[in-house]
């Protein structure tokens, strides 16, 4: 070779080896090593990145004490909100609404204030969202509602509703500034376009006033006896009333919908979604959720957990982003509950002294008479539990346990449901069905090229089929979505007929076997047979298909019940069957190529020996060739499974992408892969949704990685046994 000449001349001419060649050599070896390591590092970063974004889900949340504030003694604490990105406590003192930034450290006295009328009594208003609201009652019984509007630096009050307190409340109660230290207890809440006011007067009477926002209708009043606990519930405008003796759910006309027995008496809290409530007992708690039983709304128990809770739960709030539920007991024990399974994911005694609790952004604010305590929550996404991701969960609003993946909220009350089981089922269903289509086709074709056909035939058939392996999946998905799916719906009977006719074609082939395996059509180098076969098959399929179209017409015209039922109930277009066909066709070439290799690698000696022992071609095929090639074939099937599992575009384009935990053939599906393609860009970085999507990506990664490694292992065992022969 002339390279040698060059090298030889180089070393001859110099006489002595020039130094630079060795320096260059050393430098180069460092550069090569660097790039080799760079690639390694890149792949390691990939894996670590996937994992590090999934891990926060499995660490429990953390609560860190920040500071406590005792400087401001509010007459009336309203709540905490976010001003200019920082939490700030709002409270009323000396007829002024104060805004006190909660900052750890020195600069605390930037308090800002709005002057309020001193003639009125001011009360906090509860709302589901983080915005604060207050209400005022003057001596005439006019009640006004203000929303606190916070912009970058300033804040102001905006009136959004007002009405006169109706009788008999007005005459039985004293209000206004002078009564503010009297025993009347007000609880005002805005929920679902309704204002609810629960009021216990000093002489032990209770009233509930309900008013629809933006309506001229007069507020309704109901008397409630000795009220212990009250809260409105969403969607139905029902309310829960707890008195000393009973717990009832009533509608707006005060009709009792449901009564709970006295065991429901320790403490009751509404769920963040306002569509259910939690009842705490001594050693356990039960969650009730709204359920629409054919138009009749009722609350059913959806989860019960045994938990030793220290003290009586006194205050509840939830994280706005993940829905995680915070509960504080009167003995300062903080519980964090998963929003779907209601398991306790965190339990710790903190320094809060049974105060009321509020979650603002990343902070937990415990407020009481004398002080405000601020905690920071980190890793709140850790409320996700194994149970909530993989087990059947009884969600609020459903009759029984189920697996649901629903990440977008339709209403403010919805809780996002992250159960990955429907996605896993979707992926497995799609890939198994694809294998059902692909493996027989691939194996049959591989047997043909690697066993029956001559070397020459194999030499052009195999690369041909392998080349379609490179067919972009988006093209297959496109044709399946645009053409196959609508057609499958329109000509259902024709499609069924075509599939059913395939065995008959085979039978016809068997019967005419003698003719086409004769010398004229040499089966082993079957250019002609293949050409004739393809033409014949296409013509026959075309004829059968048209027959199917015609039959469908006939059946429909003659009102055959079964046909009409079949057509009405069966919709193939977004079903798993169309995916199976499209995905199956897409993975067939790669499975084919691997099976063909496996069969071709069977030692020729073994085949010869089998023949010499009197086995015929078929016996040799089934008892020697396929047996020996089995590890290779299995490995090919596994690789095909891995490929189908990871395929995105076809599943994305062909299915309806409905995440259903169903193995039915006619149901749609959503796979792990297509779910990522649909949802990842929409999810906010750092949110629970984002982390769970990364978790599904890690699942995908490790699953396919394991399947491929296993397949490679199987394959290497095969080559080992084959090479051992010599």
């Amino acid at each position: 070779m002339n390279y040698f000449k060059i090298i030889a001349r180089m070393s001859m001419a110099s006489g002595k080896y020039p130094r630079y060649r060795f320096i260059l050599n050393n430098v180069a070896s460092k550069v090569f090593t660097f790039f080799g390591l760079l690639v390694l590092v890149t792949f390691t970063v990939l894996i670590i990145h996937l994992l590090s974004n999934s891990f926060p889900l499995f660490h429990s949340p953390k609560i860190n004490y920040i500071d406590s504030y005792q400087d401001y003694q509010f007459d009336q604490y309203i709540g905490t909100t976010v001003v200019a990105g920082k939490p700030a406590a709002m409270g009323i003192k000396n007829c002024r609404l104060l805004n006190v930034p909660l900052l750890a450290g020195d600069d605390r006295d930037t308090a800002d204030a709005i002057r309020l009328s001193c003639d009125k009594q001011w009360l906090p208003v509860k709302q589901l969202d983080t915005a604060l609201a207050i209400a005022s009652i003057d001596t005439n019984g006019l009640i006004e509602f203000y929303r606190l509007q916070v912009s970058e630096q300033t804040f102001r009050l905006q009136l959004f509703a007002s009405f006169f307190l109706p009788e008999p409340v007005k005459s039985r109660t004293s209000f206004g500034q002078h009564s503010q230290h009297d025993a009347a207890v007000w609880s005002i809440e805005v929920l679902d376009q309704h204002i609810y006011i629960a009021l216990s007067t000093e002489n032990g009477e209770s009233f509930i006033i309900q008013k629809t926002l933006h309506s001229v209708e007069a507020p309704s009043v109901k008397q409630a006896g000795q009220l212990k606990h009250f809260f409105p519930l969403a969607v139905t405008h029902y309310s829960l009333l707890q008195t000393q003796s009973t717990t009832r759910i009533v509608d707006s006309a005060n009709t009792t919908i449901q009564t709970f027995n006295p065991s429901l008496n320790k403490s009751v809290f509404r769920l963040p979604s306002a569509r259910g409530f939690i009842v705490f007992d001594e050693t356990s708690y039960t969650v009730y959720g709204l359920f629409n039983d054919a138009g009749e709304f009722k609350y059913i128990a959806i989860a019960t957990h045994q938990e030793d809770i220290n003290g009586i739960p006194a205050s509840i709030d939830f994280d706005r982003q993940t829905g995680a539920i915070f509960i504080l007991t009167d003995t300062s024990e903080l519980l964090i509950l998963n929003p779907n399974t209601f398991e306790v994911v965190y339990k710790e005694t903190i320094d809060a002294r049974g105060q009321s609790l509020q979650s603002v952004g990343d902070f937990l604010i415990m407020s009481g008479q004398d002080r405000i305590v601020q905690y920071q929550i980190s890793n709140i996404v850790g409320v996700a539990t194994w149970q909530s991701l993989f087990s059947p969960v009884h969600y609020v609003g459903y009759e029984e346990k189920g697996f649901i993946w629903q990440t977008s909220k339709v209403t403010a009350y919805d809780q996002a449901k992250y159960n990955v089981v429907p996605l896993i089922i979707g992926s497995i269903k799609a890939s198994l069905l694809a294998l059902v289509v692909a493996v027989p086709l691939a194996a049959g074709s591989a047997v043909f090229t690697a066993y029956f056909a001559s070397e020459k035939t194999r030499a052009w058939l195999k690369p041909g089929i392998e080349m379609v392996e490179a067919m972009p999946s988006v093209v297959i998905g496109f044709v399946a979505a645009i053409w196959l799916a609508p057609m499958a719906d329109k000509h259902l009977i024709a499609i069924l007929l075509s599939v059913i006719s395939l065995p008959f074609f085979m039978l016809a082939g068997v019967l005419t076997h003698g003719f086409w395996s004769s010398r004229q059509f040499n089966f082993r180098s079957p250019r002609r047979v293949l050409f004739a076969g393809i033409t014949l098959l296409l013509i026959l399929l075309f004829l059968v298909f048209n027959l199917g179209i015609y039959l469908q017409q006939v059946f429909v015209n003659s009102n055959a019940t079964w046909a009409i039922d079949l057509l009405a109930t069966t919709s193939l277009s977004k079903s798993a069957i169309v995916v199976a066909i499209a995905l199956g066709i897409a993975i067939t070439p790669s499975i084919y190529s691997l099976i063909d290799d496996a069969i071709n690698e069977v030692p020729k000696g073994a085949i010869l020996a089998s023949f010499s022992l009197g086995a015929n071609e078929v016996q040799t095929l089934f008892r020697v060739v396929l047996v020996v090639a089995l590890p290779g074939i299995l490995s090919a099937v596994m690789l095909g499974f891995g490929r189908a599992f990871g395929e995105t575009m076809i599943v994305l384009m062909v299915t309806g992408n409905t995440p259903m935990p169903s193995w039915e053939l006619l149901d749609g599906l959503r796979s792990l892969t297509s779910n990522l393609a649909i949802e990842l860009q929409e999810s906010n970085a750092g949110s629970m949704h984002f982390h769970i999507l990364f978790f599904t990506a890690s699942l995908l990664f490790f699953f396919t990685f394991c399947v491929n490694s296993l397949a490679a292992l199987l394959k290497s065992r095969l080559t080992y046994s084959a090479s051992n022969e010599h």
Partner: protein
Amino acid sequence: MQAMNTSWFNLKQSVTEVTSLLCITLIISAFLGLVTFIGLQGIRYFIPSNVHLVTITYPDRDEQRYFQQETTDKETLLADINVRLVQQYSDNPAGKPTAQVTTIENVIEATTDRGERLYGTFDRLTSDTEEKLPIESLDNLLLTVNLLQSQLHDVQENQLMPIHRAIAILNERKVDRDVELYRSLKADFARWQAYVTEVNRRLSTFALVMVGADSQPIRIALDELDKLHFPNDLTFIDKIAVFFERISNFLLEPPKQAATSGGVFPAIFGTVLMVILMAVVVSPIGVIAAIYLYEYAPENKTTMLIRIGVSNMAAVPSVVYGVFGLGFFVYTLGGSIDQLIYAEKLPSPTFGAPGLLWASLTMGLLTLPVVIVATEEGLSRVPKGQRQGSYALGATKLETIFRVVLPMASPGILTGLILAVARAAGEVAPLILVGAVKFAPSLPVDTTFPFLHLERQFMHLGVFIYDGAFHSQIDANSASIMFASCMLLIFIVFALNITAIVFRSKLRERYERSLL
């Protein structure tokens, strides 16, 4: 007994043979069918077809008339329409509507600059002086329109623009509005503006008026008219000319009319640019890493594990790479770059959003294992003796690699690169996440500094097709531009693959010769 056995064996034999033959026939038919179907559907986008007048008479409301352009003949079109009507109106108590298809001569197919296709019969041409001109004067009118347009352009570039700039400068210097210069400029500006308005008015009088299928006039301003055909009166040669014109439009124009007409140039451009950038990144890294693994890495268990790991990375679902690309490249790397360099533009992201650079890097990562595995295979096929021969002559390791090993392994490496490029061209899933969009307002390359805008989003053929099927509610008939894009994509991918196969067989020949 013996005879029965024999026939039983024969039956088994024929069943096995027939089954295997049927399988391979099915596969080949499926793929041939797929490619043929795409080809036939796609080519319809280029073939000039006849325009038919469809009249549908409803029993309970007014008749509907419209023009439909179809490659099929009248009878097939009528049959199709009837099938549709039967399905739609099978429950209609008033009875089934009847359809009628006629082909009339002299139908005009006018394409506007916006890509709209309008059909009608010729009514008249109008100009600034005449209200009713025959079709023959079209060329003259078009000349006039062109002339006017160039005048307009000239005025705008050479008169209005300088005045405008001068006024702007005066404004900037806070010159008093009463200064003579200012006033004369203002007057000039007004004069030229009036001229432009006049020309525009004149231009708008040049129009083609057609009669639509519903007998309503359709007026198309001549300066908006892009193309005009008489599709039913084309000669064979005309048809060929139209065919090639449409192919060139498809390749060179941007999509129009919500991607139902026009071309796919930005998508082709984006695909090619992304793939080139990817190749620039991936080829040196992949090849050098493979050389490290094969020639430098110690032969131990760790290296073997790494090798298995790398080859397994090739089979990791592509969407996982997309997830990594979005999470790491876009949010982590891009976010950091934004904070360091483009802090003034925050919170609107520059590199912290999906874009061309991240797409190329993600694709590079995706194809890196392919390149490494192919290069290693190429290296392993170089006979040991060649290396030994080189060392025996006193060459260093580097010289051996560069002068002996790499030249021999180069076809293998090239094959790997081509396969990587083919894979990148056809892969869509990661691109949806890291930067390819269905419609990008501007190309990633333009004349403003720094010319190549790596942070921009771009269009990609595969994403274009995906979007066509997934988001737009289109059926097979109106999707012919998508089919044409499929055809183009398949062509690109297959061409690359065939090149790779040819290279590989060349490589084999070479080794067989060198081994003899």
